[in-house]
Protein backbone atom coordinates (compact mmCIF):
# COMPACT_ATOMS: atom_id res chain seq x y z
CA UNK A 1 0.00 0.00 0.00
CA UNK A 2 2.74 2.44 0.95
CA UNK A 3 4.51 1.55 -2.31
CA UNK A 4 1.45 2.79 -4.20
CA UNK A 5 1.24 5.88 -2.00
CA UNK A 6 4.87 6.79 -2.56
CA UNK A 7 4.51 6.32 -6.34
CA UNK A 8 1.52 8.69 -6.45
CA UNK A 9 3.28 11.22 -4.25
CA UNK A 10 6.30 11.14 -6.57
CA UNK A 11 4.04 12.28 -9.41
CA UNK A 12 3.33 15.44 -7.44
CA UNK A 13 0.00 14.53 -5.85
CA UNK A 14 -0.38 14.84 -2.06
CA UNK A 15 -1.51 11.57 -0.46
CA UNK A 16 -2.61 10.28 2.91
CA UNK A 17 -2.97 6.69 4.06
CA UNK A 18 -5.28 5.03 6.59
CA UNK A 19 -3.53 1.96 7.92
CA UNK A 20 -4.28 -0.72 10.50
CA UNK A 21 -0.73 -2.06 10.34
CA UNK A 22 1.28 0.89 11.72
CA UNK A 23 4.58 -0.93 12.19
CA UNK A 24 4.56 -2.44 8.72
CA UNK A 25 3.46 0.87 7.17
CA UNK A 26 6.07 2.90 9.06
CA UNK A 27 8.83 0.59 7.81
CA UNK A 28 7.82 1.43 4.25
CA UNK A 29 7.97 5.18 5.08
CA UNK A 30 4.65 6.73 3.99
CA UNK A 31 4.45 10.46 3.14
CA UNK A 32 1.45 10.81 5.53
CA UNK A 33 -0.40 8.11 7.44
CA UNK A 34 -2.97 7.71 10.21
CA UNK A 35 -3.68 4.56 12.22
CA UNK A 36 -6.83 4.28 14.32
CA UNK A 37 -5.43 2.48 17.35
CA UNK A 38 -6.52 -1.11 17.79
CA UNK A 39 -8.42 -1.37 14.52
CA UNK A 40 -7.86 -4.42 12.34
CA UNK A 41 -8.12 -5.13 8.63
CA UNK A 42 -11.73 -5.13 7.51
CA UNK A 43 -12.82 -1.90 9.19
CA UNK A 44 -9.96 0.57 8.98
CA UNK A 45 -12.49 3.41 8.65
CA UNK A 46 -14.64 2.40 11.61
CA UNK A 47 -17.67 0.30 12.46
CA UNK A 48 -20.23 -0.59 9.75
CA UNK A 49 -22.97 1.98 9.19
CA UNK A 50 -21.52 4.28 11.86
CA UNK A 51 -21.42 7.31 9.61
CA UNK A 52 -20.34 9.74 12.32
CA UNK A 53 -17.33 7.62 13.35
CA UNK A 54 -16.31 6.93 9.76
CA UNK A 55 -16.46 10.63 8.88
CA UNK A 56 -14.52 11.54 12.02
CA UNK A 57 -11.67 9.20 11.06
CA UNK A 58 -11.90 10.32 7.45
CA UNK A 59 -11.64 14.02 8.32
CA UNK A 60 -8.76 13.41 10.73
CA UNK A 61 -7.01 11.55 7.94
CA UNK A 62 -7.60 14.29 5.35
CA UNK A 63 -6.53 16.96 7.84
CA UNK A 64 -3.07 15.38 8.00
CA UNK A 65 -2.69 17.08 4.61
CA UNK A 66 -2.85 20.42 6.47
CA UNK A 67 -0.76 19.40 9.49
CA UNK A 68 2.96 19.88 10.07
CA UNK A 69 4.69 17.37 7.80
CA UNK A 70 6.00 14.19 9.40
CA UNK A 71 7.02 12.19 6.34
CA UNK A 72 7.80 8.58 7.12
CA UNK A 73 5.76 8.51 10.32
CA UNK A 74 2.41 6.94 11.16
CA UNK A 75 0.19 9.05 13.43
CA UNK A 76 -1.74 6.84 15.85
CA UNK A 77 -5.03 8.12 17.32
CA UNK A 78 -7.75 6.70 19.55
CA UNK A 79 -11.34 6.44 18.37
CA UNK A 80 -13.38 5.08 21.24
Amino acid at each position, binding site marked *: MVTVQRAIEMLGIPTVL*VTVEPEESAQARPPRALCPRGYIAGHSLGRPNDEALQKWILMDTLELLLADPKPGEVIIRDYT
Partner: protein
Amino acid sequence: MEKALELSRYCVPFTPFKRKLEESLVCLVSTAGVRAKVDAPFNLEGDNSFKRIDGSLSAIELAVDDTHYDHGCIDKDVNCVFPIDRLRSLAREGRIAGLTEEHFSMGFSQALRELRETTVPQLARAVSAARPDAVLLTGG
Protein backbone atom coordinates in the same frame (compact mmCIF):
# COMPACT_ATOMS: atom_id res chain seq x y z
CA MET B 1 22.28 -0.62 -19.77
CA GLU B 2 22.34 0.46 -16.14
CA LYS B 3 19.18 -0.02 -14.16
CA ALA B 4 17.27 3.17 -13.40
CA LEU B 5 17.84 4.54 -9.92
CA GLU B 6 15.14 3.70 -7.41
CA LEU B 7 14.21 5.84 -4.44
CA SER B 8 15.70 4.53 -1.22
CA ARG B 9 13.25 3.47 1.46
CA TYR B 10 14.94 5.99 3.74
CA CYS B 11 13.98 8.81 1.42
CA VAL B 12 10.33 9.82 1.70
CA PRO B 13 8.63 11.46 -1.30
CA PHE B 14 6.60 14.44 -0.18
CA THR B 15 4.38 16.77 -2.19
CA PRO B 16 3.15 19.80 -0.21
CA PHE B 17 -0.62 20.24 -0.05
CA LYS B 18 -1.29 23.87 -0.94
CA ARG B 19 -5.04 23.95 -1.30
CA LYS B 20 -7.91 24.01 1.15
CA LEU B 21 -9.77 20.76 1.72
CA GLU B 22 -12.99 22.57 0.77
CA GLU B 23 -11.51 23.21 -2.67
CA SER B 24 -10.09 19.74 -3.20
CA LEU B 25 -11.22 16.80 -5.29
CA VAL B 26 -10.35 13.56 -3.53
CA CYS B 27 -9.55 10.23 -5.18
CA LEU B 28 -9.82 6.91 -3.30
CA VAL B 29 -7.17 4.25 -3.91
CA SER B 30 -7.34 0.90 -2.13
CA THR B 31 -5.58 -2.43 -1.98
CA ALA B 32 -8.62 -4.07 -0.39
CA GLY B 33 -9.85 -5.77 -3.59
CA VAL B 34 -12.81 -3.40 -4.10
CA ARG B 35 -14.66 -3.32 -7.43
CA ALA B 36 -18.01 -2.42 -8.96
CA LYS B 37 -20.41 -5.36 -8.67
CA VAL B 38 -20.95 -5.21 -12.42
CA ASP B 39 -17.22 -5.76 -13.07
CA ALA B 40 -15.39 -9.09 -13.20
CA PRO B 41 -13.99 -10.21 -9.82
CA PHE B 42 -10.32 -10.08 -8.87
CA ASN B 43 -8.59 -13.45 -8.96
CA LEU B 44 -8.36 -14.45 -5.30
CA GLU B 45 -5.28 -16.62 -5.92
CA GLY B 46 -3.31 -13.58 -7.04
CA ASP B 47 -4.14 -10.67 -9.32
CA ASN B 48 -1.74 -8.02 -10.54
CA SER B 49 -4.37 -5.84 -12.15
CA PHE B 50 -6.08 -2.76 -10.80
CA LYS B 51 -9.67 -1.78 -11.39
CA ARG B 52 -11.33 1.56 -11.98
CA ILE B 53 -14.37 2.41 -9.88
CA ASP B 54 -16.81 4.98 -11.22
CA GLY B 55 -17.02 7.90 -8.81
CA SER B 56 -20.81 8.01 -9.07
CA LEU B 57 -21.25 4.56 -7.50
CA SER B 58 -22.44 4.01 -3.94
CA ALA B 59 -20.92 1.53 -1.50
CA ILE B 60 -23.91 -0.74 -1.99
CA GLU B 61 -22.94 -1.09 -5.67
CA LEU B 62 -19.44 -2.31 -4.75
CA ALA B 63 -18.07 -5.77 -3.96
CA VAL B 64 -14.84 -6.87 -2.26
CA ASP B 65 -12.76 -9.83 -3.45
CA ASP B 66 -10.43 -10.89 -0.66
CA THR B 67 -9.73 -13.85 1.58
CA HIS B 68 -7.23 -12.24 3.96
CA TYR B 69 -9.36 -10.43 6.49
CA ASP B 70 -12.69 -10.82 8.29
CA HIS B 71 -15.58 -9.65 6.12
CA GLY B 72 -18.05 -9.26 8.97
CA CYS B 73 -17.93 -5.48 8.69
CA ILE B 74 -17.66 -4.96 4.94
CA ASP B 75 -20.51 -7.37 4.28
CA LYS B 76 -22.66 -4.82 6.09
CA ASP B 77 -20.95 -1.67 4.84
CA VAL B 78 -18.13 -1.37 2.26
CA ASN B 79 -17.47 2.14 3.60
CA CYS B 80 -15.51 0.40 6.38
CA VAL B 81 -12.63 0.01 3.93
CA PHE B 82 -13.68 2.18 0.97
CA PRO B 83 -15.50 5.25 2.31
CA ILE B 84 -17.04 6.47 -0.94
CA ASP B 85 -20.44 7.37 0.57
CA ARG B 86 -18.78 9.16 3.46
CA LEU B 87 -16.62 11.27 1.13
CA ARG B 88 -19.75 12.18 -0.82
CA SER B 89 -21.40 13.19 2.44
CA LEU B 90 -18.39 15.40 3.31
CA ALA B 91 -18.72 16.98 -0.15
CA ARG B 92 -22.42 17.72 0.46
CA GLU B 93 -21.41 19.41 3.70
CA GLY B 94 -18.82 21.50 1.85
CA ARG B 95 -15.86 20.02 3.76
CA ILE B 96 -14.26 18.78 0.53
CA ALA B 97 -15.02 19.97 -3.02
CA GLY B 98 -15.94 16.51 -4.26
CA LEU B 99 -14.72 13.19 -5.55
CA THR B 100 -12.83 12.46 -8.75
CA GLU B 101 -14.75 10.75 -11.56
CA GLU B 102 -12.78 7.55 -11.01
CA HIS B 103 -11.35 5.70 -8.04
CA PHE B 104 -9.03 2.69 -8.03
CA SER B 105 -8.42 -0.61 -6.30
CA MET B 106 -5.92 -3.42 -6.46
CA GLY B 107 -6.48 -6.99 -5.36
CA PHE B 108 -4.21 -9.47 -3.60
CA SER B 109 -0.90 -10.42 -5.19
CA GLN B 110 2.41 -11.83 -4.08
CA ALA B 111 4.12 -11.12 -7.39
CA LEU B 112 5.89 -8.20 -5.79
CA ARG B 113 8.35 -7.50 -8.54
CA GLU B 114 5.66 -7.25 -11.21
CA LEU B 115 3.61 -5.09 -8.87
CA ARG B 116 6.49 -2.73 -8.26
CA GLU B 117 7.74 -2.55 -11.82
CA THR B 118 4.45 -2.63 -13.77
CA THR B 119 1.19 -2.39 -11.83
CA VAL B 120 2.09 0.35 -9.38
CA PRO B 121 3.54 2.75 -12.00
CA GLN B 122 0.49 2.17 -14.25
CA LEU B 123 -1.86 2.73 -11.35
CA ALA B 124 -0.06 5.91 -10.27
CA ARG B 125 -0.34 7.31 -13.81
CA ALA B 126 -4.05 6.41 -13.95
CA VAL B 127 -4.59 8.16 -10.61
CA SER B 128 -2.74 11.22 -11.89
CA ALA B 129 -4.93 11.27 -15.02
CA ALA B 130 -8.01 11.48 -12.79
CA ARG B 131 -6.60 14.88 -11.68
CA PRO B 132 -7.17 14.65 -7.92
CA ASP B 133 -6.05 17.40 -5.55
CA ALA B 134 -5.45 14.75 -2.90
CA VAL B 135 -5.47 10.95 -2.72
CA LEU B 136 -6.76 8.90 0.19
CA LEU B 137 -5.37 5.37 0.36
CA THR B 138 -6.87 2.49 2.28
CA GLY B 139 -5.74 -1.08 2.87
CA GLY B 140 -8.21 -3.49 4.44
